[in-house]
Each structure stands twice: as structure tokens, then as C-alpha cells.
């Protein structure tokens, strides 16, 4: 007997689907008993499920409610109290049915098909056990900016050993390059430097500067990260940072740390508070004259220093790799003009220890500007660059305008904006005083900055006066939009984290799990997730530390054995599965092959490639998926089956639902762990049963959570298309669409396209 529990979810489902009709319908079905309730996730709902399992001795359960991404965990725990926690299947009739189907009749029919598919699959569910594995208590933090530093201190306070890997020559990140920080106008370095010192002195924190993570393997609780440390050409154990070398180095180039507002030698340290406080030779500008070696009393120069690779074993990872600025040179903003600078460059001019000792002196000739102009939304809220709002620019531009105005009351300061976004504690008050100080806020988006010799003409409309203006400025500051840093983008592929359409790393759930990723034990913090002010980075860091402390609190963690299993009777020992497994989870003794439960990541690619069908993935077995197809098509023959990977495609379909997009009721989603789990058989079988079309919603290429599952699926689809052509069905009715988990509209477009094709 299978128990079907249908949720009204208030009006969320009940308003779009005839729930009582569904209950009645399934109650008539043999071997099925159905119940409905207002909120299945509530205590009442959960008690109902538990009661009925016991009372009716149910074999398995179908939960027809919201997306499993929401309350899947609650139902699993609830069912697990009374029977094996995996003996249930869900039917997502909220995000993927009720919310995307405006017609109530059609929605009800679609819900029937979805639930029917789930019932058929549920019939084949079996018990799945769990096992315990040990965890390493060490933590890896990638990125030594404000988020990384805070997380490392929090974690070390809780007794964890932290490895901090930083790409640059010093930790500190962007924040320690700022002059002051809003809304308190504190000196950034006064705030940052104690942190730098704490991290540097903390015996539980190991800092690896000039280092990058190049590979991450292993499993939650025991990740193995490969780190490459680039040569510093200075022996960190000997260098005392006395600066004798820098004084004598004949080379002089623009300093990256000062964003080309100041100069540095080929051997240098970026700032007096650098951690580690060691000099570094930058070999691209070094002319190898040997002077530093001659003058270094500590004998620290090592011209023959080489990259060093090492491995770190850690239980959890924090990705705090930060942001960069969008490049606006050769655009209408003309960043290539010396007197058009970014907000970050302005910070370097304002810093008292910076190249101009805190004086605002423009780069073309050192003039102190009379007319300073800030350009807001430069590269943000702009579909040609970044669609999103960079969140911090209104405030950081206002902060700098205020500080400069306070010191130079005679200076004419204009700030051109589209909308001032000053939401936050003390922010609006901050903005109020800025206007009262005499800073001009001009409501209009700058169209172009026209170089006029050393000066600039800024074309902007005063939208309140309906009048285009040409404002002459001698220095223009672009409040440049934020983009994920190169490191952040790299982590997307190295650790296989999911990125959003904006290329920032995406959390499991932007609201309810903002620092968790789909990879257990890997967390994101700070601006690698999205543009945000410093206090939010710190909040993230605290939350990450708390999440990790919870995750690593016991010496062992329980893992669920949703893994692949080999049937030795059918296995011909060809080794294809082992060759294909990117996690080295299949080992052989020569005699037989065996799946290593702790290493298996449950993608199911092995079952697809096995020539005899000897290996199969629990919870997504060959037969279970086939029966689910049967169930759906038995209810609605004209369906279009959408195999959606649980990392991206399924999430995109959920997002389309959250956005209340319209999707044809013909589209029926079948969840798979990875598009690589879908066999040719799965692609062809629905057509045999009368389906109108089949498509796969997979991750973007290069972003497969399981590395190459979507590429394998692509090959399979191409083959299956040929077969369909030969069979006369038409290969065009089978397609693969790539989308990130954040791209709801892409799923909608894919669904629409399929409906057009399959008419």
C-alpha cells in the first residue's frame, strides 16, 4: 500500500489545483490511499503522515507538495521516524505545477500525472542505509579578505585549525586599501590592521600567501586541496622587511596595489601592515641586476625560488575569493583617460599613507580638482555590463564625497545617479548630511564622458529639469560596478560550485541557506557570493564559522548511502565504470569491482556507461526512472518529459515557478542527480510510450557539478537524435538545454521551444 499525502499549502497549491479532486482520484487507485491537509509541513501534517504509516503499515509514501529543495529535509526526517527515510518520493506540484499553470483544470490534470509518476516510482523504492565516516577538523579558507579573515578568527576561537590561502602577496583583501568605511567614517586600516595582526599571530591559523588552490578532491569531512605557492624570490624565514632592497632597486613601475596611482620597485611590499610582512620580487619588472641580493644583510634573496605544490587535508572549505571591478576602458566612460578613475583608485589617493599622502591630486598633472564628479551605476544596472545593482556604490561614493567636501569646502562636487539606494542602518542619515554639506546630487545617468584635453566634459541629463547638460570636470570618479574576481570564477570550476547568471557563486538557497553550497562542507562568504558592504561580509563570516562548527563538531558524520551498487552476477569486469568515475569511487581487486561508498558522489554516470547494466544508482535506478515515465504518460500521453539535473535544471524550473512564469502543462519534470544519469533508453522510451518530446535541462558547459556529466549527456543526446531520425520520430523532438540554477527564464524558454517543436 502506498500513501499519497497532498498539501494545499494554503492557497499556494489549493488556489490553483483541485486538491480534493486529486485525493478522490487517487483513492480510487488500487494499492493507493490518499490524504490531503492544509499544511503538510506543519506539525499536524507531519503527525498525519506518521500516524498513517503506522496505522496502515504503508510500504512507501508519496509527498505531493512544494519543491524538495524547500521541505525535503523535514519530510525525510518525519518519515524516517517510522520507516526507512528513503522510502518516499515527492511530487512537486507547487513550483512546477500550481505556480506555472494558470488554468486550474489543466493544473489539476498535470498534478495527477506528476503524482502518478511518483507513485509508480515509489513502488520500486527500497531501504537505503547510512554509514559513518571520520572528519578532519582542519578548515581551508580560500581568500584572505575581510570575510576570510573574520571567518578564520571565529573558527580559531572555536578551536579549529585554519589554513588560509591567499593569491596576493598579503592578506587583507580590498578593504585594507580603502581610506575610510561607511557609514561610520572609520579609518579602514585602523579597523583592518588589528585583524591582520590577530590573524598573523594566531597559532591556529597558517597563512599561505601568493598561493592558489588548483584542485579539490575527496568528500565532505575530508577534502584534499592541492595548493600551488608561487615563488616570492625572497626567503620568508629570513626577510625582515627592513626595506633596504626596495631603496636600492633601480626599477620603478606603477604599483598594482595602488592601482597605478603610485609607484613601486621590482622588490617591494605592498603596504607597511602586510601579512606576511615580507618583501617580494615581481619578476616581470625585475631586471635581475642583483642589487637587492648585494644589500640584503639577511641573505633572503632567492632568485632561483620555484613554485611549490602541496596538499592540505581539511574537513570543510570556505570560499571567500571576493570581487573585482568591471573594466570600463574603451567605453563611453573612457576609463583610459588619466583623469577618469575608479572609486577604488580614489581610495588609494585618499589614504594618508598612499602615493599622494591623502591629497586628491589628479593623475594627469597632480592638480587638485576644482570640479569633481562621481558617476554612479558605471557598469551596474546595465544590461551591457552587469544587470545587477552593485549595492555599495551609492554609499561609497557618498562617503568619499562627504570626506572630500569636509576637507575642501570650496570644491564643487557633483554626484550623478539614477536612484540613490541607501537602505541600511544609518545610511539614509548619512546621505541626508551629504546633501546638507553642499554636495550636488544630480538625477541623471551619465551618457558619455568626453575627454577635452586634460579635463572632461560629462554629458548628463538633469532629469528633473528635463534638460541635457555638459558639465566640465577636472576629475571624474566612476562608481564602478563589482564583478566576481578571477579567483571566484576559478573556484566555480575548480570546486564545481554553482554560479548564478551573474557569475557570482550561488548559495543553496539565497534566503534560507545563504552561505551553504550544494557541496556539503563547502561554504561561501563575502563578495564571492554577491556585492555587499563590509558588515554583511562579516555577518557571512560569522555564519560560516557557525555552520562549520556544527558540521565538524563530532569526530564522525553520517552519510547516506545513496550510492551506486554493482550486481556481481551481471558484471563482466570490463572496468568502464571505474575509468569513467571522476571521483575514483570504484576500485577493483582484479577479481571484482566495488563501489567505495564514502567516495561515491551519486551522479549515476557509471550506470549509463555500463554495457551490461550491472551497476545502478540507488534512488534513481534504471527501473525507477522508467516506471516514473510510465506513470506520467499513463496519466497524460501527450507529455513532454523534462529530465532536469538536481544541481541546475531542476532549480531553474523551481525558480520559474517562484517567478510565476507560464509553462505549458505538457512539460513534466523528472528529477535526476545529473544529466549524465539519463541513459539513451530513458531518452527514447517516452516516445515509445507516446510522449510528444523529451528534453534535458543540464548545467552550463564547464559548470557540471559532476565535472563532465552534461558533456556526456550531450553525446548521448546526439546519438539518440540520430536513432529518432532513423525511426522516423524526428531527432528534433529531443534536445538538451544548458542553464545555471539561477536561470529560471532559460527553463521557461526551453519549455516554450519544446512545445513549439513538438506541436
Amino acid at each position, binding site marked *: 500500500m502506498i500513501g499519497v499525502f497532498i498539501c494545499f499549502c494554503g492557497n499556494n497549491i489549493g488556489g490553483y489545483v483541485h486538491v480534493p479532486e486529486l485525493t478522490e482520484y487517487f483513492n480510487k487507485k488500487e494499492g493507493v490511499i490518499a490524504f490531503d491537509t492544509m499544511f503538510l509541513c506543519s506539525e499536524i501534517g507531519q503527525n498525519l503522515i506518521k500516524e498513517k504509516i503506522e496505522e496502515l503499515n504503508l510500504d512507501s509514501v508519496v509527498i505531493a507538495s512544494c519543491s524538495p529543495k524547500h521541505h525535503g529535509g523535514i519530510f525525510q526526517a518525519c518519515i524516517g521516524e517510522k520507516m526507512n527515510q528513503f522510502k518516499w518520493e515527492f511530487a512537486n506540484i507547487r513550483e512546477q505545477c500550481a505556480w506555472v499553470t494558470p488554468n486550474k483544470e489543466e493544473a489539476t490534470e498535470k498534478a495527477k500525472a506528476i503524482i502518478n509518476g511518483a507513485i509508480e516510482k515509489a513502488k520500486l523504492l527500497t531501504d537505503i542505509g547510512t554509514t559513518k565516516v571520520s572528519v578532519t577538523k582542519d578548515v581551508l579558507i580560500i581568500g584572505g579578505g575581510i570575510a576570510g579573515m573574520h571567518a578564520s578568527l571565529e573558527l580559531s576561537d572555536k578551536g579549529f585549525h585554519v589554513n588560509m590561502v591567499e593569491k596576493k602577496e598579503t592578506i587583507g583583501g580590498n578593504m585594507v586599501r580603502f581610506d575610510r568605511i561607511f557609514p561610520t567614517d572609520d579609518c579602514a586600516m585602523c579597523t583592518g590592521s588589528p585583524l591582520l595582526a590577530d590573524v598573523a599571530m594566531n597559532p591556529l591559523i597558517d597563512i599561505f600567501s601568493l598561493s592558489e588552490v588548483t584542485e579539490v578532491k575527496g568528500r565532505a569531512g575530508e577534502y584534499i586541496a592541492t595548493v600551488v605557492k608561487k615563488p616570492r624570490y625572497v626567503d620568508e624565514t629570513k626577510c625582515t622587511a627592513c626595506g633596504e632592497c626596495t631603496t636600492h632597486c633601480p626599477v620603478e613601475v606603477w604599483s598594482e596595489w595602488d592601482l597605478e596611482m603610485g609607484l613601486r620597485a621590482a622588490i617591494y611590499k605592498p603596504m607597511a601592515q602586510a601579512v606576511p610582512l615580507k618583501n617580494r620580487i615581481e619578476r616581470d619588472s625585475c631586471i635581475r641586476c642583483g642589487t637587492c641580493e648585494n644589500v640584503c644583510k639577511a641573505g633572503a634573496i632567492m632568485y632561483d625560488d620555484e613554485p611549490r605544490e602541496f596538499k592540505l587535508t581539511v574537513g570543510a572549505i570556505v570560499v571567500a575569493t571576493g570581487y573585482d571591478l568591471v573594466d570600463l576602458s*574603451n567605453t563611453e566612460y573612457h576609463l583610459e583617460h588619466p583623469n577618469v578613475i575608479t572609486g577604488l583608485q580614489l581610495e588609494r589617493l585618499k589614504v594618508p599613507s598612499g602615493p599622494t599622502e591623502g591629497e586628491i591630486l589628479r593623475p594627469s598633472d597632480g592638480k587638485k580638482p576644482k570640479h569633481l564628479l562621481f558617476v554612479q551605476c558605471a557598469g551596474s544596472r546595465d544590461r551591457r555590463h552587469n544587470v545587477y545593482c552593485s549595492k555599495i556604490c551609492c554609499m561609497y561614493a557618498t562617503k568619499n564625497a562627504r570626506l572630500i567636501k569636509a576637507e575642501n569646502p570650496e570644491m564643487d562636487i557633483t554626484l550623478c545617479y539614477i536612484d540613490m539606494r541607501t537602505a541600511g542602518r544609518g545610511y539614509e542619515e548619512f546621505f541626508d548630511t551629504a546633501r546638507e554639506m553642499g554636495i550636488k546630487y544630480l538625477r541623471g545617468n551619465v551618457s558619455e564622458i568626453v*575627454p577635452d584635453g586634460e579635463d572632461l566634459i560629462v554629458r548628463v541629463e538633469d532629469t528633473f529639469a528635463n534638460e541635457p547638460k555638459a558639465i566640465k570636470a577636472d576629475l571624474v570618479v566612476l562608481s564602478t560596478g563589482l564583478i566576481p574576481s578571477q579567483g571566484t570564477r576559478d573556484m566555480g570550476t575548480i570546486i564545481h560550485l554553482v554560479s548564478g547568471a551573474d557569475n557570482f557563486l550561488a548559495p543553496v538557497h539565497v534566503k534560507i541557506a545563504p552561505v551553504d553550497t550544494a557541496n556539503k562542507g563547502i561554504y561561501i562568504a563575502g563578495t564571492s557570493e554577491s556585492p555587499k558592504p563590509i558588515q554583511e561580509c562579516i555577518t557571512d563570516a560569522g555564519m560560516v564559522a557557525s555552520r562549520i562548527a556544527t558540521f565538524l563538531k563530532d569526530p564522525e558524520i553520517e552519510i547516506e548511502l545513496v550510492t551506486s551498487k554493482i550486481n556481481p552476477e551481471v558484471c563482466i569486469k570490463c572496468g568502464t565504470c571505474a575509468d569513467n568515475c571522476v571521483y575514483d569511487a570504484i576500485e577493483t581487486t582484479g577479481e571484482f569491482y566495488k563501489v567505495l561508498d564514502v567516495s561515491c558522489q551519486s551522479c549515476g554516470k557509471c550506470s549509463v556507461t555500463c554495457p551490461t547494466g550491472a551497476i545502478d544508482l540507488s534512488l534513481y535506478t534504471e527501473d525507477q526512472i522508467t516506471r516514473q515515465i510510465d506513470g506520467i504518460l499513463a496519466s497524460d500521453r501527450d507529455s513532454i518529459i523534462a529530465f532536469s539535473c538536481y544541481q541546475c535544471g531542476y532549480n531553474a524550473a523551481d525558480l520559474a515557478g517562484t517567478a510565476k512564469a507560464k509553462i505549458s502543462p505538457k512539460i513534466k519534470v523528472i528529477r535526476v542527480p545529473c544529466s549524465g544519469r539519463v541513459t539513451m533508453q530513458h531518452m527514447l522510451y517516452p516516445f515509445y510510450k507516446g510522449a510528444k518530446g523529451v528534453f534535458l535541462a543540464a548545467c552550463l558547459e564547464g559548470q557540471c557539478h559532476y565535472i563532465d556529466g552534461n558533456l556526456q549527456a550531450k553525446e548521448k543526446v546526439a546519438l539518440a537524435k540520430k536513432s529518432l531520425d532513423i525511426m522516423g520520430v524526428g531527432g528534433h523532438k529531443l534536445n538538451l538545454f544548458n542553464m545555471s540554477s539561477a536561470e529560471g527564464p532559460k527553463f521557461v524558454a526551453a519549455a516554450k521551444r519544446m512545445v513549439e517543436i513538438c506541436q
Partner: protein
Amino acid sequence: MKNKYSLFPGCISKNMYPSIEKSTRIVFDKIGIELLDHKYSCCPAPGVFRGYDRNTHMTLGVRNIVMASQDDVDVLTICNGCYGSLWEANEMFKKSKENQEFVNEMLGKIGLSYDGNTEVYHFADILHESLDKLKENKELDLGLRVAIHYGCHYLRPSAKHPDLNPEAPHIVEDIVEALGCESVDFKNKLSCCGAGGGVWSGAEDVSLKILDEKLGNVEEANVDCMLNICPFCHLQLDQGQAKLKKYKIPILHLSELIGLAFGVRPKHLAMHTHMVSTRDLEKKIKKAKRSKE
């Protein structure tokens, strides 16, 4: 690269500035690209006709393209207006089934039809691909200081040139430098000349004010001449300048400049038909020629 195109000269170069048509034919002949003639009408002028009825504009544009498509050659334009017109008509046709049906129904009435398989090119792009050929045929380095005027409908909408940055193009700069000239930057270099959109014929005062701003910026840059890649801009810059009675900046179409670098005599290129005298420019070139000899 193809070696045969259908030349779409456009009304202005045929009927008002034949010097442009002439120099274009000379230049393409020298670099070994054959130009065919077809029964073309006006493109039709985008400013006037598109503003009145988009469908008329599209249909008449496609009719022109059909002329070339019958001979299986692509269309080469030497005017931004013609380029914009024909490119837009072609795009509109290709993009929508509805448009295809409309156009072919209309063309059917005069026994024509179009399949959407012909492309429209701008001559500056083709010349840029032939930079080596230009250098081979160059007889002298002109040594002129040149203010380049791109003209809007070449640069924008930028979908025409996926590889070109409409805020920092370098196509014409590359050509000008290959001819031994210096491209001189000036204020608001990429802005409009004021002629397009039917404003030239519809609101002359506005049109001339825009031109005045543009020429004022060029004057500040102290150049030998202003270069364009569009006869309509050419018309505006040359005739409009005469109307403004303020400036004396010789105006050259790119084909004319290349013709001069190829050693063709200015008279032969009919440069004396320009409103703004090119005599000072010619003197400078003569001097360059003499010093070479």
C-alpha cells in the same frame, strides 16, 4: 574574402558627388575586386522612408538586394545610409516570417522574390580586410593629419559588427595609418554630423547646429582634412560647411583619400567638385610627391 561584389553606389555618390563613385571604382579595380552594376533604386533613404513606413522601407530595400541576389553576389555599399538601410531591411526580412510573407507578396506583384541568402557589406570593412593590397598599391605616403568621421549608421546599432566596439572603433584608423596619414583625435569624435533621420531635409536649422558643434571640435584639432565613409555625411560636411560660412575644412570620402594615395590625380577624382576647396590639401600632397621623387 570574395573578389566580386555588386556595387551599390547610392543616390548621392551617383547623382551629387560622382567623385566618390569614380574613386571607389578606381580603388577596387586596383586591389583586384570586381564591382558589378545592378538596377538599383535609392536604398531608400532611411531617415525619410523608414520614418514614414517601416514596411515600405523594408520592401524597397529588399527589392534592391534581390537585384544582386539574382546574380548570386553580395551587395557592397559605400554609404552608411545605404548600408544601414539595406542591412536593416535584410535583418527585418530574415528575422520574421511575417515580414518574409509581406515582402514576397509585394515583390510578387512585380515578379520578384527573395530567399534571404544575400549579405550586405560596408566598403570600409572590405578595405580593412584588404590592408595588404592597399599598402601594395600605395604610391606615396600622404602625410596628412586626418580627422576621421565614422558616421552613425556604420557604428550603430552595433549588431551590424559584432567584433567592433562602437565606442572605440579602429577600422578606418588602421586604413588611414596604412596610407601614411595620421589619425587625429578630436572631441566627440564619434558623434553625429546632423544629417540623418530626415533632419537634413526636415529641420535644416537643427541639422546645421549639430554640424556646427562637430566642425568646431574638428577645427580645434588642427587637421588637413576630415575623412568620411558615407556620401550623405560627406554632403552634410561639405555643403553644410559652405552654408555655415565659418570653416574651411576639406572633406574627403575614404575612396578619395585612397585614390590620392594610389597616385591618382585629384582632378581625375573630380575633387574640384567639392564645395569646400581641397586646393591646400592637393598642394600638400604634391609636395609629398615631389619630396619622394
